[in-house]
């Protein structure tokens, strides 16, 4: 048995499959909800506590590795804003 398979028991795999088959987990709703907090959560959430390891999670949300870069607007476009800023 591979290391990955050893992490889930037969019952746990069944639970995951049932959750997917019955659409009990609304991934669309989760995505929409998380998108509201995505950028701030990326810097605010702590790593999960794995000390006890007694929890079983059936929905996991992974953050992308590294830092997400939000690009600047073009400077020429921002010039339009400058008038409002400086009055």
């Amino acid at each position, binding site marked *: 048995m591979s290391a990955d398979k050893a992490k889930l028991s037969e019952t746990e795999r069944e639970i995951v499959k049932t959750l997917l088959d019955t659409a009990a987990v609304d991934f669309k709703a989760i995505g929409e909800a998380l998108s*509201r907090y995505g950028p*701030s959560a990326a810097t605010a959430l702590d790593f999960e506590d794995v000390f006890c390891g007694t929890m079983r999670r059936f929905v996991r949300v992974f953050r992308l590795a590294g830092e997400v870069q939000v690009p600047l607007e073009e400077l020429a476009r921002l010039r339009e804003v*400058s008038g409002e*800023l*400086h*009055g």
Partner: protein
Amino acid sequence: MPEERRGLWDEADLVRRLLRALEVAERALKALGLEGYADPENPEVDVRPEKVISETALLLLAAHRVREPNARRRVHHLAGLLAPFARGERVRAGICLEPQLARDHAFAHTCLSVIGYRDDDLDRLLSASLQDQASSGHERLAHRDLEQEWLARLQNQHSALRCEDDRLPARSMLGTGLDPVGCRRDDIYAFTHALIYFTDIGSRRHQLPRPVTAIVEEAESALARCLDDEDYDLGGEVLLTWPLLHQRWTPTASFGFVALATVEDAAGFLPAPIIKVDRYRSLTGEARSRYVLATTYHTAYVMGLLCACILGSGCGPDSPLPHSFAGRGASEALFGLLEQEGRARHWQATFTGLDPSQREDLAPMLLNMSLRRATRAVDLPAVRSALEIGAAYGLTSTASARRSAALLRRASNAAVRV
């Protein structure tokens, strides 16, 4: 080798930039000082009034050391406007109810006191709160502990009371060191803020926990990263390293200031990614004005803080940038490597506008950028290519080159074990 004549950046230009920041501060304080701002369309745009008040106070604290008459007038005008926000009921309640955060609540009040605007009643309330046993019941990061010590120094500057932890600077980024290649944004933030607090915004010269040359070298790496990311908020803070430590500006640092000033002149302000022109256009009247201030005031303050610290310390960037007489070609080779990536950054236009002999001294910055990009992309062959160019031109004695070489060695060893 001929001795090159080097001048400093025009003082009038620095004053002009500082005055613009102080004008923004007045508008920001009036528009955001009471209720802050929250954009219903974007939860990322959420500015608490306490943040605006504290940051305005920090800007004033740095600016009040500038002797230029217009700047002095503006500082005192703003101090009068700030006082009701800094010492209002919300602040008094916070100091009273949360002794562990008392100095944070009193941040702006403390800065105003140093500038010369005292409030003895609030000082008494603060002292009483700090005497409560609960005042030490809060755990902070090292740079935040340095901030608490700095605030305590400001509060107690007229008394002999001192209770500082001598080991604290060594535990902060000033002591542990910044990873020049793999550091995160938070690490650079911790570095710049540790410097601000440790040096009392440049007015205290105290024994650093490591040689200043090592700290400056890390600042150069962080600056290269910020310029390449077009992160001008953090880049401006990193540039504080030179005036705060009273160090002569290196070619990379001077170039960094030119790059930021060029961006500020092109946009009309130093921008951050949070401002969106489409959102701005969708708003009108007061809502538009508040949105613009909420999304731009912070980087405007950073530029003002930087100019104030330069003016206050008398330690500014070179203008024009120095010319190297070495002419070895390292800069051209590394710039070629960086140009291979599609999107051109703002700094590249500034760089190509320089004389070839001015570009040569920026080769270490280009190597830092190359190594950073390659490491971020986990592109180890690109790390190797950059290091090979660096080695060919004798640039690999830097911390970033050593760390990158160590990364390649670790990766190689890990691959062998797999």
